[in-house]
């Protein structure tokens, strides 16, 4: 029982990290039908922005909630700016090009960020300092809970609820949903679709940046290639939930996080990374639209 709860906590914590990244994939896909392969690297840049913010403001010397909040905010601003630049410089000039050109560009941007990261941050892993100090684990009899994992979950849920509110309850969110349904129709409504697209990249990148910092806190080793695998897995999570569907991405990510955790805990830890890709193959074979995805009506 204790073990089960432990695994659930780990799974939800990892799942919410995947969710924060997956949201960026799914939102961008929803609007542009583009898989932004550079998204995992935006998460990496978020972690490094947090890392440098901690050093610059000497936050590790004063661990507190305020330091954590400051680190998160700086990382989110940094990765948000990067997301804006990527869209503006790499994707917007190709808006009218065939989709394959944009896809190849996405791979190019991803490689560019990874190797520019190695150039500027150094290829060796860096130690992510703690900005929040906890006195060991919280113990409830036998059960030991790492407060950082709870923190990850809580912060992620907060960010996801904020996003959900923005998308479903505000005027801007309505414009985003309209643009994602049909960009041309949205522009006929007077919606500045280019700005909506920029906003989508910024929001998605911001969440990825937050994920970068949260991961840095729990697994305190960051390097310029750290975004590759979580990026791909978050992409799988988005497909699992139904790519283009915001709530689906969160669901897919939590399922992926939990199943990885249970696989590691109860059976075959070496298959951890294979699970996501096995799942991807299964979804594409049996339910290509994902769990919550809808079939798009084909235009006649």
């Amino acid at each position, binding site marked *: 029982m204790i073990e089960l709860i432990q695994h659930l906590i780990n799974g939800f914590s990892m799942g919410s990290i995947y969710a924060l990244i997956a949201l960026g994939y799914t939102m961008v896909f929803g609007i542009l039908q583009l898989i932004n392969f550079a998204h995992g690297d935006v998460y990496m840049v978020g972690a490094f922005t947090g890392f440098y913010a901690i050093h610059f403001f000497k936050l590790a010397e004063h661990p507190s909630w305020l330091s954590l909040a400051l680190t998160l905010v700086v990382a989110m601003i940094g990765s948000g700016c990067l997301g804006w630049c990527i869209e503006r410089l790499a994707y917007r000039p190709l808006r009218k090009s065939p989709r394959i050109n944009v896809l190849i560009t996405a791979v190019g941007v991803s490689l560019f960020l990874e190797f520019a990261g190695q150039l500027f941050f150094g290829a060796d892993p860096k130690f992510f300092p703690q900005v929040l100090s906890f006195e060991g684990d919280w113990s409830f009899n036998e059960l030991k809970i790492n407060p950082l994992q709870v923190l990850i979950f809580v912060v992620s849920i907060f960010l996801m609820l904020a996003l959900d509110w923005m998308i479903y309850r505000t005027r801007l969110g309505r414009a985003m949903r*309209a643009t994602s*349904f049909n960009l*041309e129709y949205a*522009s*006929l*409504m*007077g919606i500045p679709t280019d700005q909506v697209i920029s906003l989508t990249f910024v929001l998605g990148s911001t969440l990825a940046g937050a994920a970068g910092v949260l991961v840095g806190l729990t697994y305190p080793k960051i390097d310029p290639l750290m975004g590759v695998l979580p990026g791909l897995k978050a992409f799988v999570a988005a497909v699992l939930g139904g790519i283009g569907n915001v709530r689906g991405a969160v669901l897919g990510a939590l399922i992926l996080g939990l199943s990885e955790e249970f696989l590691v805990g109860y059976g075959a830890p070496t298959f951890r990374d294979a699970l996501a890709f096995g799942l991807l193959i299964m979804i594409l074979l049996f339910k290509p639209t994902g769990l919550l995805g809808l079939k798009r009506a084909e235009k006649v």
Partner: protein
Amino acid sequence: MSTPSPLLTVAEIRVHYGVIPALTNVSLEIMPGQILALIGANGAGKSTILRSISKLVPLSQGSIHFQGELISQLPPHQIARKGISHVPEGRGIFLNLTVEENLDLGAWAAQNPKTYDDDLATVFELFPRLAERRKQSAGTLSGGEQQMLALGRAWMSQPRLLLLDEPSLGLAPQFIERIFELIQDINRRGVTVLLVEQNALQALEIAHEAIVLETGKVVMKGNAQDLAKSDAIRRAYLGGEYL
């Protein structure tokens, strides 16, 4: 006596899709308050004219002025905000949003946001069906109701000029009649209408002026009632080679 100036002036526009010409040297004018019908066979370039007015397709040549202002350089969303509301072919409804959310999006382009409540009341007066279904997803509406929603949403943007692309397409005959009545109603409330229709004879019944297109060129223009009587109209409507 001074003649009133046209609301919209399309001057010598050319449009290409790749290397294929879609419009070759089309000019037209709409006077304020009119319904102008654009008729012609499939592929004659009717929709392309509307799409080039809204800048959904780029012009290779020519210019478009609206209320004396050059608009052919502007992006689509700014053209919408000038008071040109384009209901595209297939109606352009956001099927993932509710009826109310669709109407609300129409108001993005409105120049006077203060009259939102009045505009909404007018829409529900014109289309009581929409009031009943305001919380429903637009995807659950029938084709005729969706066309009403498209017209209602256009009204929310307080248009001076309404571009309608095949409003009767896919509708049952009794709905077509109703939609044409509603278009006339909207026109009487002060909105100029540029109407693209395959249903040529019915379009000519409600239009003041009409233009006949054939393979990207204007082949006839004039009073709608006169054109309705001419043989040439039937020839153009059927595509020429059939007679």
